[in-house]
């Protein structure tokens, strides 16, 4: 029993250490590397990939419309600044509230599963986009013409707040990987009927994971609105944000801490290296990579080790 406990403590220390390393790297890179926007986007995708990990990795729901929460957060922030005259921090709270409210409205989607859930969540995100981008709502949302939030523009502060959000998200994943609650969520993913027999409240677990993952995307969307400060509904609800987050998470390995980090570092790195200069090669490589992954490594790079019973942090 003692050895089990000390091994458990060792695992938590390893997970927490790796999470801290990610935060330190992203914090110090800004002082030595001048392309701040690129670093900021890395942080956004690290956050989104981990947020998706919370709902997909731990409960098995794959929301292709995950970007809906991101957009809701971005517009929650923008509306709070434009109409309520709030400063950036209270506006971030509004971003979070906006995404969580959308999450609550979409709770009934959790009755679906598999591809049906993925498609329904995508349709929901599209519906929110259509409302925000509706020219008839120009007085409220500025419709398709986009918002400008120059009055709160603060690249340094927004960078470090985003780093803080990433840190909190990584901490949540470390908690889920090492807690009884995280274990219960994985039990629900494996077999909801058995999980209920084991005394786990399936509905409560799913709803909590869903809202936590909505909250994370909402905060990421709020950071985006604050840091970029000029954006359009097309960029806040861009479906490729969902797809990137899904592919990054699947590539590295779900329900791990390091999997989504590796996915973002490698694939988003690849995207920025060749995707901008020679987009045609990028799409070719990306397409081939996704096909190879699904055929040969459906559980991501992490499964190379977990299949050999080596625990991946």
């Amino acid at each position, binding site marked *: *029993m003692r050895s089990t406990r000390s091994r458990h403590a060792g695992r938590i220390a390893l997970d927490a250490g790796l999470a801290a390393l990610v935060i330190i790297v992203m914090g110090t890179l800004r002082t030595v590397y001048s392309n701040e926007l690129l670093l900021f986007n890395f942080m956004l995708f690290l956050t989104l990939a981990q947020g998706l990990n919370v709902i997909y990795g731990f409960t098995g729901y794959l929301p292709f419309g995950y970007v809906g929460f991101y957009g809701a957060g971005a517009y929650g922030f923008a509306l709070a600044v434009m109409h309520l005259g709030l400063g950036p921090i209270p506006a971030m709270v509004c971003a979070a509230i906006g995404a969580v409210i959308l999450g609550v409205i979409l709770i009934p989607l959790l009755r679906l599963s598999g591809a049906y859930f993925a498609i329904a969540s995508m349709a929901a995100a599209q519906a929110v986009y259509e409302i925000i981008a509706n020219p008839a709502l120009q007085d409220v949302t500025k419709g398709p013409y986009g918002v400008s939030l120059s009055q709160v523009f603060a690249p340094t502060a927004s960078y470090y707040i985003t780093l803080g959000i990433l840190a909190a998200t990584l901490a949540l994943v470390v908690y889920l990987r090492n807690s009884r609650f995280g274990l219960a969520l994985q*039990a629900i993913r494996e077999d909801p009927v058995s999980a209920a*027999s084991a005394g786990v409240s399936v509905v409560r677990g799913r709803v909590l994971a869903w809202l936590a993952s909505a909250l994370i995307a909402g905060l990421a969307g709020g950071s985006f609105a604050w840091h970029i400060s000029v954006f359009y509904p097309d960029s806040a609800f861009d479906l490729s944000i969902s797809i990137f987050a899904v592919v990054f998470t699947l590539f590295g390995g779900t329900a791990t801490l390091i999997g989504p980090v590796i996915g973002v570092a490698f694939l988003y790195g690849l995207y920025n290296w060749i995707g901008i200069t020679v987009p045609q090669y990028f799409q070719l490589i990306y397409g081939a990579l996704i096909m190879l992954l699904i055929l040969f490594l459906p559980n991501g790079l992490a499964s190379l080790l977990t299949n050999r019973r080596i625990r991946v942090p």
Partner: protein
Amino acid sequence: MLVVEALKKRFGGFRALDGVSFHLSPGEVLGLVGPNGSGKTTCINVISGLYPPDGGRVIYQGRSIGGTPAHRVARQGINRTFQSPKPFLSLTVRENVEIAATYGNPGDPPDLDDLLESLDLLRHAERPAAELNSAQQKTLDLARALATSPRLLLVDELAAGLNPSELARMADRLRALASRGMALLVVEHLMGFIDRVTDRVVVLAAGKEFFEGTLADATRDPEVIRVFLGGGNHG
């Protein structure tokens, strides 16, 4: 301890349970037998909270529990195994029982090492449940149910697929649980196993019970013979 009264469950137009009644006391092992489709598993599913009943009552320790969600039923001391094993495949054997001990046991959970040892699972404790064979996975279902310290255990075809020596051991285990005061409801097709384990049987056909007594009496009952083997008496 458990009283089932005129229990009904429909699936569309099909009456899976059409007014089943029986009772069960602490320390007693009741067998539920009947041909395929007679409603045995549905009965367990309704008692364990997987389905709400469409009529009738399930009374456990004096309280009506029909329609209570499965996770609450588990915490009240009723647990079960599944006809085809349903472990949490990607989790280790130990994690499988740990979840049940944490969430399904409001009292003092049993020592998990002792529990796994008593079911010959301790040496597999750190392996993912997916690596166990199907008999071991069924035993893991039982271990998970026992981790919640149930007072009523519903056993759904635990014996199917076990070899003769495993069968004998499983029968002894169930009898040992009953001797400690646990009530057991056992659904099983293997009559040898039923004979060895149960005190009493209820025979179901088409969602109704029509015989109650010992297995020996059941095998001499002409109605039971007719339902199981068919017969000339088409009335």
